[in-house]
Every structure is written in structure tokens, then in C-alpha cells.
């Protein structure tokens, strides 16, 4: 039997890898990829806690579904922003998009 901690550690690993991607990638699309990884790790957590808790309480799965919806919304808006920025400034490098500095 797989203990709960394995799932949680898998989730933590996925989260940290995603975090690494978010923090280090220069390409804005790649940053969003990292965000997806982090969201997935959260979903793994939710599903795991659902399975290892009281399975008749559907909260874990319900929240996972809602995270799906949020992820879809986030990607749609995020990529739309990236494309819009690309049209205006001809770049998707996050470091170059720094108009909001002093």
C-alpha cells in the first residue's frame, strides 16, 4: 500500500520544480508552464487527501475540479496577455517587460 506521504512528497517535488520554472525561465510562456506544474501539484494533494480521508466527502475532488476551471481561465487570460504583449513590444522575455519600474 502506498502511504499518503509518498503522494505528498511527489506533490511537493512537482511544486518545487514548477516554482523553479516560474522563478528562472525568461520566456513568459515558460513561466506559465511552471505555474501549471504548481497547480497540478496542488491537485495531486487534493485528490490524495480525498482518497486518504473520508471518501464520501467529495470536497477534495470538487476543489480539484474548480482548480481545473481556474487553471483553464488562468491559461486563457495569461496567454492572451502574453500574445498581446508580444504584439505591442515584440518580445515575450519577462525581463524585458519591465515598464512598471521606477
Amino acid at each position: 500500500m502506498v502511504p499518503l506521504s509518498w503522494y505528498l512528497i511527489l506533490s511537493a517535488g512537482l511544486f518545487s520544480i514548477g516554482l523553479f520554472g516560474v522563478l528562472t525561465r525568461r520566456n513568459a510562456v515558460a513561466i506559465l508552464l511552471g505555474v501549471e506544474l504548481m497547480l497540478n501539484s496542488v491537485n495531486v494533494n487534493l485528490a490524495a487527501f480525498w482518497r486518504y480521508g473520508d471518501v464520501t466527502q467529495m470536497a477534495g475532488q470538487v476543489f480539484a475540479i474548480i482548480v481545473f476551471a481556474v487553471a483553464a481561465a488562468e491559461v486563457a487570460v495569461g496567454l492572451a496577455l502574453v500574445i498581446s504583449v508580444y504584439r505591442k513590444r515584440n518580445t515575450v522575455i519577462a525581463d524585458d517587460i519591465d515598464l512598471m519600474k521606477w
Partner: protein
Amino acid sequence: MTAEQIVFLIVALVTLGSAFMVVTTRNLIHAALWLVATLFGVAVVYALLNAGFLAVVQVVVYIGAIAILFIFAVMLTRKDARDSGPQTHKNWWVGALLAVASYLGLSALVLGWSGSSKAAAGLPSGFDAVGQLGEALTSPNAYVLPFEVASVLLLAALVGAVYVAFNRK
């Protein structure tokens, strides 16, 4: 070590490995495809957790829509076909440090928690997870409100995305 554990370890390794490729590979299309692999791995993890519905929805939504969208976005935002230059900025070591720190912190928290080692109880016989999930999502006593809010969020995102990405000329 049981068969289940072996399967889990294989899936986890594949998942983490492809996730690592997502954040490190230079070619962004490859990164997106590696993301597909990762998402597939996560779908299998859901299946291992007896959350069949989540697994299928993971494939439909993430692979069928989100990954495709990423590939489109990558293709639409490239000046030439090749990815050139470094894909990480010069402060990448700080990010790596932070990621490692957060992994260690989270692992420490998980391992330090007594409840983390417990095993899953067997599913009740005749347990219909999909039916229960459907009930929970649409029952006024459960989660119909968050569900509806999520739908409104999706609609807003749809409209917003079209508005933001629309080419006004």
C-alpha cells in the same frame, strides 16, 4: 514492496522527470510536450487514487485544451523557428535555491506530520465516486455555489482573453 508501490514509483519518477524537463529544456515546444507527459503522469496518479473522473478530465482539459493552447502560444510568439540564447536569466541560482528550500521545507513538514504515513481505507462496496461528485457539485447543500462561480470565472476569462488578445487594426 508491493506492485502498487512499484507502479507508483515508476509513475512518480516519469512525472517528476518530465516536469524537470519542462523547466529545463531549451526548446519551448519540447517543454510543452514534456508538460503533456507530466500531465499524463498526474492523470495516472489520479487513476491510482481511484479518482477516475479527475484522470479523464485531466486529459481532456489539460492535454486537450491547455497544452494545445501552450503550443499555439509558443508558435505565435516566436520571431524565428529556433530558440536561441539562454532560457534562464542570470539569477537562476537564486530561484534554484528557493525551489530547493521550499522542497526541503515541504518535505520536512510532510514527514514531520504523523498523519502522513497512514494507508488508505478500502473504498466502500458499490461506491460511485462520479455520482457522488456530481451530487456534490450540483447540490445546494454542497458545492453548487463554488461550481457556479467557477463557471462565471470561466466566462469572464473567455471574454477577457478574447478582448485582450484581439488584434485591433
